């Protein structure tokens, strides 16, 4: 039997855990995640210095990782501390940049160094979780393009320096052919944003693109053929969210078990009640299953497209389902204390449920799993 985690993985994981435990305690997190920008630029550059951002990309892209195991380990570690920094934004946006031209790849190097932020804007009002439903348009204008339309729920879309955005260059609303990706500076004339904080911390933005003129060098990959790049980035995003969820639920369950041992009612620890024991055991077993689902997804990431997509959906479904269950049981077992802002478990629970609202919830991925099935 062979394990795919090697010594480098173990070191990465330990480094991240140490940093999050020491430097990203609950009060620090609470302040950063709910600040105006939704993150802490100071802490973000420290994550970059530690190499945590570089671990998400392979050497060709200027990083030193980028495998399924790397992504899973980083995001599991991030989940353990409910780190609200822009990791998902740079993983999705950065994976697209890595498929681009030299100038676009150079942008990624700055992102890996922690000097600039990139995000991916691919969700529109009414598109739900479907990335091929693209109403935003890009039309030829001399040597360049004009972008028109709007995107919603763009992670850190208010503060990112660079936006990778999907737009339709041909075809109908749901055609995959005809979707193109563009790399646009956030400061480009015609982009306006409505920034908001998320329920679970961090910030997002709804962005409007009005007659935004970009050069031909803004095109990422070939015109009309952007969907494959987008899909690959979103698949990595799915693994990241599933692994993060695993980290969040592991700590949530640990906190709940500790509470069951400490909290006394009727003169005994509430953990002595069998009604609660069996329920927490069911949560623990479900988390072990989620751990396996994430492991399967991490190793499937580079397999053939269909297998990878199906296994990723299995993981997102499993973590979505178990995440909500873990969150609800934690709040219920903490009783009134689980309802209080200053009690960390409440924020872990919020993150677990909100992960289900990124890139597809449990029902969406169960359907995708079925649609991709062999049966």
């Amino acid at each position: 039997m062979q394990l795919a985690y090697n010594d480098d993985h173990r070191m990465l994981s330990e480094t991240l855990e140490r940093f999050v435990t020491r430097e990203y305690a609950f009060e620090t997190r609470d302040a950063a995640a709910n600040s105006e920008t939704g993150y802490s630029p100071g802490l973000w550059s420290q994550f970059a210095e530690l190499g945590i951002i570089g671990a998400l990309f392979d050497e060709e892209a200027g990083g030193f990782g980028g495998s399924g195991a790397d992504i899973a380990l980083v995001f599991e570690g991030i989940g353990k501390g409910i780190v609200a920094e822009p990791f998902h934004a740079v993983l999705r946006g950065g994976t697209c940049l890595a498929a681009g031209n030299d100038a676009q790849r150079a942008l990624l190097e700055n992102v890996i160094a922690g000097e600039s932020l990139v995000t991916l804007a691919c969700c529109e009002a009414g598109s739900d979780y479907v990335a091929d439903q693209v109403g935003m348009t890009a039309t030829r204008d001399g040597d360049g393009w004009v972008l028109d339309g709007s995107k919603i729920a763009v992670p850190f879309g208010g503060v990112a320096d660079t936006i990778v955005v999907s737009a339709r260059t041909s075809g109908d609303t749901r055609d995959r052919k005809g979707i193109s990706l563009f790399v646009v500076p956030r400061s480009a004339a015609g982009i306006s944003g409505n920034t908001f904080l998320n329920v679970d911390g961090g910030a997002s933005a709804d962005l409007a693109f009005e007659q935004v003129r970009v050069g031909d060098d803004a095109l990422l990959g070939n015109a009309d053929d952007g969907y494959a790049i987008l899909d690959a980035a979103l698949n990595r995003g799915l693994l990241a969210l599933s692994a993060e969820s695993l980290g969040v639920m592991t700590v949530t369950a640990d906190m709940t078990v500790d509470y069951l041992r400490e909290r006394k009612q009727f003169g005994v620890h509430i953990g002595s009640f069998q009604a609660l024991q069996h329920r927490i055991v069911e949560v623990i077993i479900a988390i072990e299953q989620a751990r396996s689902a994430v492991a399967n997804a991490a190793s499937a990431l580079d397999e053939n497209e269909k297998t990878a997509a199906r296994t990723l959906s299995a993981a997102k479904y499993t973590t979505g389902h178990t995440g909500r269950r873990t969150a609800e049981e934690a709040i219920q077992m903490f009783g009134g204390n689980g309802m209080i802002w200053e009690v960390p478990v409440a924020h872990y629970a919020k993150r677990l449920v909100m992960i289900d609202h990124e890139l597809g919830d449990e029902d969406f991925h169960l359907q995708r799993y079925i649609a991709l099935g062999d049966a």
Partner: protein
Amino acid sequence: MDLTFTPDELEFRDEVRDFLKDNLDPDLADRVRNFAHLSREDYEGWHEVLNKKGWLAPHWPVEYGGTGWDVVRRFIFDDECNRAFAPRVVPFGLNMLAPVLIRYGTEAQKEYYLPRILDGKDFWCQGYSEPGAGSDLASLKCAAVREGDHYIVNGQKTWTTLGHYANRMFVLVRTSSEGKRQQGISFLLVDMESPGVEVRPLITLDGRHEVNEVFFTDVRVPVDNLVGEENRGWDCAKYLLTYERTNSANVGASYAALGRLKALGATRTRNGRPLAEDPLFAARLARVEIELDNMSTTNLRVIASVAEGAAPGTESSILKILGTEIPQEISNLARMAMGPEARALRDESSTDRKLTRDDRAALNYFNLRKLTIFAGSNEIQKNIIAKMMLGL
């Protein structure tokens, strides 16, 4: 994380597959696949095939006839046998009694009984549960009183699986009612042909005869048949239970069952379309398939950690729970897939065709309710996890 077999392990898997292809009678596999009744001869015949190859007792020490396989190879072997629809190896002598004898038995007991388990001279059954002692096993009452060189045994055992095939039974008896309940229990080996032993069938809800009640009336058992010390039988019982609970995930068997269920989804219809296209059925099927894929990896993770030297602990309770709930759900979906045809209680004599697994879908569903009850009910497993793993 990705768990992969080494090239050596893959080679071993191929060797097992080849062996099964050449030695597992297709007719027997077909009957296993179709939930047909298996006779004593069916079980004994399969034991003989494995024994000839030296693969009947993989987990025994090599000196007694074991294979010397590590935990990964033992898993691969079990898994391949399950996927090929080999009959299960009857566990009572091989997997339960033998480890107890090797650990607690006298030299004479080991020398006499172990070879007889391998060559099929003895067919063992298990005498643990009583009408008043199920999950609370230590409350057992079946009594053995010492009289010279014999114990005189009186009482009743129940749920004795395949007791009607067995010629020997290992029995937990009460030899003292003083002190803690666990401290007055002894482990005895009983010859079922002794006067005073009576086996009565217990027909289960699926109409099958698998389990029995066994009554003891003044049965004389030589004191040489005591395993370990008098009143220390609980040690043997606990040791045996840890063996009973290993390999309970039965991943290969569930994949085989899932494959059959998918075939059913393609051939059955609902609302004029293939059942597999019905969104509710598709969702139920997808959920259990994902659970099974997850469990398969959970199982491999446990095996990998045991292979690295960790002691199997509460993980076996986790696998027992998953490994029973998942096959129950698959059997539930197979029952539902059969629609109105599931109700017919078919019998081989009333039809000119061979009955299939699908004909028996409802009976199998009811039969498999046993999974979450036996070998320590799933509620007992949850108690164990809460106590040992979570410290509650």
